[in-house]
């Protein structure tokens, strides 16, 4: 069995357009290495040069934010479902306009 990974639109250029890819690994870190071997460059969009999760990337294991489960050390099991999403705030339009005002 494998681990199913849902890839957001903006990262599908790395997966040949695929919305769902499969990978393997005992930890999130291991899974990302495995994915990067198949989809070169993907890991570099999720992890910073310092080795942490990118600030604007959220990764969920079975709907739970991985940052509260050990981040890259989070333990994974076969059959887990992983979702990768860009960080956006609720009411995205409001924040986008607001952020523009404040030059953020």
């Amino acid at each position: 069995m494998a681990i199913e990974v849902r890839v957001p639109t903006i990262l599908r250029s790395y997966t040949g357009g695929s919305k769902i890819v499969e990978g393997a690994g005992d930890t999130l870190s291991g899974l990302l290495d495995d994915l990067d071997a198949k989809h070169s460059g993907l890991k570099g969009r999720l992890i910073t040069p310092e080795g942490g999760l990118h600030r604007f990337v959220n990764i969920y294991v079975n709907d739970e934010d991985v940052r509260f489960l050990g981040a890259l050390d989070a333990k994974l099991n076969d059959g887990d479902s992983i979702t990768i999403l860009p960080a956006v705030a609720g009411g995205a339009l409001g924040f986008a306009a607001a952020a523009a005002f404040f030059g953020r």
Partner: protein
Amino acid sequence: MARYESLLDACGGTPLVGLPRLSPTVPEGAPPVRLWAKLEDRNPTGSIKDRPALYMVRDAEESGRLRPGDTILEPTSGNTGIALAMVAKLRGYRLVCVMPENVSSERIQLLRMYGAEIIFSPAAGGSNQAVAVAKQISAEHPDWVMLFQYGNAANARAHYETTGPELLHDLPTITHFVAGLGTTGTLMGTGRYLREKVEDIQIVAAEPRYGELVYGLRNIDEGYVPELYDATVLNRRFSVSTRDAVLRTRQLVEVEGIFAGFSSGAILHAALAVAHEAVKAGKRADVAFVICDGGWKYLSTGAYGGTLTDAEEALEGQLWA
């Protein structure tokens, strides 16, 4: 207390009600696991946003940023806009909202009734166009005041000083607090207060997982984390799909008679997850969660009827929380 000098004084003090039917059943002899809903739809304009709107305006008044007759500018189409419109009316300010022209008619009608002026940005232009319009307005009116709820400390302070103490007063045995994650104000303010007062309190975030269109950024670096957000206040963070949110919203009204908006359903979904874990672990739990608003503003989506798949399709591409 049931008598107030004005509507603004009636903000907060909302009821906390038990959910005996939706709370999980525990084995005989096991400690109780109970769900409690804080009915924030009982605020003056019908949502939890009345608390931060009032606090942000008062804070701007006290700091001298906002003076009588000033114009407040808020690029939002949601509950914060409606709450600000009421506060602005009663405190003597003009409110201008910037929003895309394809938002629900309930919101436009409500904002107009409260006296807000609306500047529309073209629906076809998406959020990029809305940002362009907002920038242009800002340049033309540098004297207009923006409260910026995502980075305004008074937003979180409203919950630290009101929502948190109310919860602890009504439920001294509280073990978990679950709320929605948008501006993060509710969780940051209430969470900080409860952490100071309740040993081992669990602060749990429920975040809406929207359809793909909502995440239509060009690249990851266009993402955004609200300035108010501090991950150390939280213990866990759940991403809740549209389908799960709709399912729980329907259960709320069908099982407990609470007619709520979809963000409340998403929060209930996370609350039920931690409640069931407590049952499994054989631990006592008093899980309090937030009903953000009533369902009235969302009836036109059609997502309260039909199959879950119909509802999911109706909400596709919409910001339902």
